[in-house]
Structures are given as structure tokens and as C-alpha cells.
């Protein structure tokens, strides 16, 4: 019944997506070019920090590619989460004035910056061409990884968005948690750097599985993730999703009164 309502509201989703894409680049000079510039600058900083200062095991790949392959999906995740936590508040006018499935707002947020992900991947591929890294058939996994990342974005968005309606503390804490997440997820380093005893525990963070899968599909066999890690990630993802759906569904009808 809920699902039918959601399905009927597809046009709202498509026009909200269009709105967000259009307004991001209106009245900017560089426009879409910013999306290309951002990952390159990020990669440059990460390369400087981890390759220039720290010592890093050699996997036979330029460090910038190891960073970029993870960074592409991390950027997608983090921009969707920061959007997801505020999307209900930002569109409070819609919540208090129109009756539509509010989950549309969160689905919209979890898809945010898909264009950015695409451009980041193109930048990564350009670097691969430059360094003569072969493209493999593993690239076909990318749509699957994309799908799982969206589900993760949505699951966390359901939690953070709902809490934010009641306690605006979320606004302050989410950017902090995301910065923390960047360092505790294997973005600037690889999974192998994690001590073996902690590895299973580390996989509970669903971003670990996603990032490892992404590296595998871009850079190949060297980074093949073990199945148990992926399964642990999927399980914890499922848990976050179900609990998020529950929390959101429980409080959704109160949003209009409290927001």
C-alpha cells in the first residue's frame, strides 16, 4: 500500500531531481566543471598526505588511482548523506503544505550527485589510460556497487533525516561524522593495512565492502575482496535499512506538525 503510493509519486521524484540538478549549476561560472575539479583536487591532497608524508605499501599501482577509485564512491556517499540529513528540513514547505510520500525526498537525496560519481569515474579512467592500466571486465560490477551505495545512502538518510526533524543537533554532527568516516574507511589506504584481528569487525562498516568492491572492479584482481567481508557488509546494510524504514515509517506522520 505504501509502495503503491511511492510508485504513483514517481513524477514528483523526477521533477525534484531535475530541480536539484538545475539549481546546483545556475549562476556559477565554472558550472559542471566544478564536478571534475573537485575529485582531482581531493586526489591531489590525498596523494600529498599519504604518499608524500606517510609510507605506503606498493601494490604496483600509482597511488593516485588507489585513492581515486575509492574517492569516487566516497564522494557520492558523503554528499548524499549530508543532503539526506537536511532534505526534510530544507523542504519543510512541501511537508507542511502537500500530501505526498515524504520518502521521495530521501530517495532524491540518496541519488544526489550521481552525475558527480559518473564524472569522477571518467576522471579515474583518464588516469588509468595515462598510466597504461588495463581495463577489465570487472568494470561491469560498477552498476551493482552503485545500487548498493544508493541503498546505503537511503538507509542512513532515513535515520538521520528523521532524527533531524526532532533534534537539529544532527546538522552539526553529520559533517563531523563524515570527516571521521573518511579516515576510518579505507579511502586513503587499503584494507590490507588493517590489522588482521580487526578485519572482520572492520567489515561491519558497509562502506568498507563498497570501497573494496569498487577498487576491485576498477583496478582488478589485486584488490579482490573476500566474500565473508562483503556478506558482513550486506548484513549490516540490511539491518540499517530495515531499522531506518521502521523509524521513518513510525514518525513520518508527525513530520508536518513538528518540523
Amino acid at each position, binding site marked *: 500500500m505504501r509502495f503503491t503510493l511511492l510508485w504513483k509519486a514517481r*513524477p*514528483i521524484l*523526477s*521533477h*525534484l531531481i*531535475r*530541480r536539484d540538478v*538545475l*539549481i546546483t549549476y*545556475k*549562476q556559477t561560472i565554472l558550472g559542471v566543471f566544478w564536478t571534475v575539479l573537485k575529485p582531482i583536487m581531493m586526489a591531489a591532497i590525498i596523494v600529498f598526505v599519504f604518499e608524500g608524508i606517510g609510507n605506503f605499501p606498493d601494490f604496483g599501482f600509482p597511488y593516485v588511482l588507489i585513492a581515486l577509485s575509492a574517492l569516487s564512491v566516497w564522494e557520492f556517499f558523503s554528499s548524499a548523506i549530508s543532503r539526506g540529513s537536511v532534505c526534510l528540513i530544507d523542504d519543510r*514547505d*512541501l*511537508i*507542511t*503544505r*502537500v*500530501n*505526498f510520500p515524504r520518502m521521495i525526498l530521501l530517495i532524491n537525496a540518496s541519488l544526489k550527485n550521481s552525475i558527480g560519481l559518473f564524472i569522477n569515474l571518467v576522471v579515474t579512467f583518464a588516469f588509468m589510460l595515462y598510466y597504461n592500466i588495463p581495463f577489465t571486465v570487472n568494470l561491469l560490477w560498477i552498476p551493482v556497487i552503485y545500487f548498493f551505495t544508493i541503498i546505503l545512502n537511503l538507509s542512513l538518510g532515513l535515520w538521520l533525516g528523521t532524527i533531524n526533524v526532532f533534534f537539529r543537533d544532527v546538522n552539526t554532527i553529520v559533517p563531523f561524522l563524515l570527516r571521521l568516516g573518511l579516515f576510518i574507511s579505507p579511502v586513503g589506504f587499503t584494507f590490507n593495512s588493517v590489522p588482521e584481528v580487526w578485519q572482520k569487525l572492520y567489515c561491519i562498516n558497509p562502506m568498507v565492502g563498497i570501497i573494496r568492491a569498487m577498487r576491485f572492479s576498477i583496478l582488478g584482481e589485486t584488490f579482490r575482496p573476500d566474500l565473508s567481508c562483503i556478506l558482513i557488509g550486506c548484513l549490516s546494510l540490511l539491518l540499517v535499512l530495515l531499522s531506518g524504514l521502521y523509524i521513518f515509517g513510525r514518525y513520518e*506522520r508527525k513530520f*508536518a*506538525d513538528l518540523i
Partner: protein
Amino acid sequence: MENPIIETFGLGKKYHISNLVNKNTEEKGLLGGIKSIITQPRHQPKWALRNIDIKVEQGDIVAVLGGNGSGKSTLFRLLSEITDPSEGEIILRGSVSCILEAGVGFHHELTGKENIYLNGTLLGMSTEEINAQFDQIVAFSELEQYLNVPIKKYSSGMYIRLAFAVASFLRTDILLVDEVLSMGDESFRQKSIKRMKQMADEGCTIMMVSHDAKILRDICCSAIHIEQGQLIGQGSMGELFKSYSEK
């Protein structure tokens, strides 16, 4: 006789309002402030509407009368299911569209055309429906030349015209309109009133709030009067309006 299209039974809506100033218990200074936070109940209930029993027949144009803060918008929010009632029951025998504000979802950076689609889908139209009626909507708004201009460049009159144009081509059984018509110039107002009557003739039931008595007397045949969340009366426009304006 057919069943009324809208029926409510003992409808009530309670809001919890925090920091309602209570003069008797208000204490001064930091210590007093902390003390009052601990001792006072954080949220105090306030009934925005209570014991509302109304019936609306299909095809009627009903005026909702009442002063500021009397609960008119809350009634619309409940009828359009934006929020759930705290008590009582609503029976709706048709689809509802609610216009609580002109141009809901309008984004100032988007063009008129983009906003028509965004607003239209939010109000419940499908993209195909908007495509099919797009020319009529534009013609009604008289904004043909400005369709590709961001609406932040629009004058407030143009904004209202665009908003009302989308709303007036909704295909819905029940239309709730809150204070939208009283803006815009006289000629556009006449046109909007004509369009509302036409919609009612086509079978659409309309409930409207306006502080402009002239508009209400022009188009509404029956009325509902609410004051401070209580139903004062429901009946023909003529009678109720007389008692309303005597207050």
C-alpha cells in the same frame, strides 16, 4: 440523496507547543530559568480544532469563515491528510488537492515552465496531464513571454498568476483553496472566479478561505464558520455571513 463528499465526526487536532509563556510560573535569572525548565511540563497541549462535525455536498463551493488563528488552515491540513487528526474521523469520497499557499514548491531559480511541472506534479498531476494542458495553463496565466525566465524575476502578480493557473487545471474531486484568490489584480480575479465556478459545474467540490468578503459572496453558496477551533455554524452563505460580519 447521495452521501456527502466530505464528512467529519468530532474532528479535533491538538498541538504541543513548547515555551508557551506562562506568566505565573515564569522565574527570573539563570537559576530560575533552569528551575522552570525542570519543573514546567516541556510541552503544553493546545487544541487548534475540536468537535468539528461538517458535511459538504458534491459540487458545492463552500466558504470557510473565521478570524486569524481560528483553525481554518488546520482544517484544510486535516482534510488533505497532510497531518493526522488527534481525535475524530474524516470520510472523503473523492480525491483531494489542497492549495495552502500559492505556488507550493516553486523555486525562485527555476523558470516558469520548470515550476509549472514541479508544482503540478506536487499537486497530484501526472507529467502527461501537464503536457496535455500545458498550453491552457500558460494561456490562463498570460505569461507566454516569460516562460523561460527564472521566477525570481517575476513580479508578485505574475507569481500568483502562474501559481493559480496550475491549480485551476487540477483534475480533482475536492479542491481546498486557502487565501490565494485575494491577490492579483481585478481582471485576473474575475477570471479566476469564473474558472472556479466552471470547475464546480464540472463536479468539483471547492472549499475556500479568503479574507476578501466580496469574492466569497460572489461564488460561495454555503459556508462553515469556525472560531477558536470550535464550529460556530454551517449553513447557507447568506445567513452565516451575516452573523460572521456582525461580530
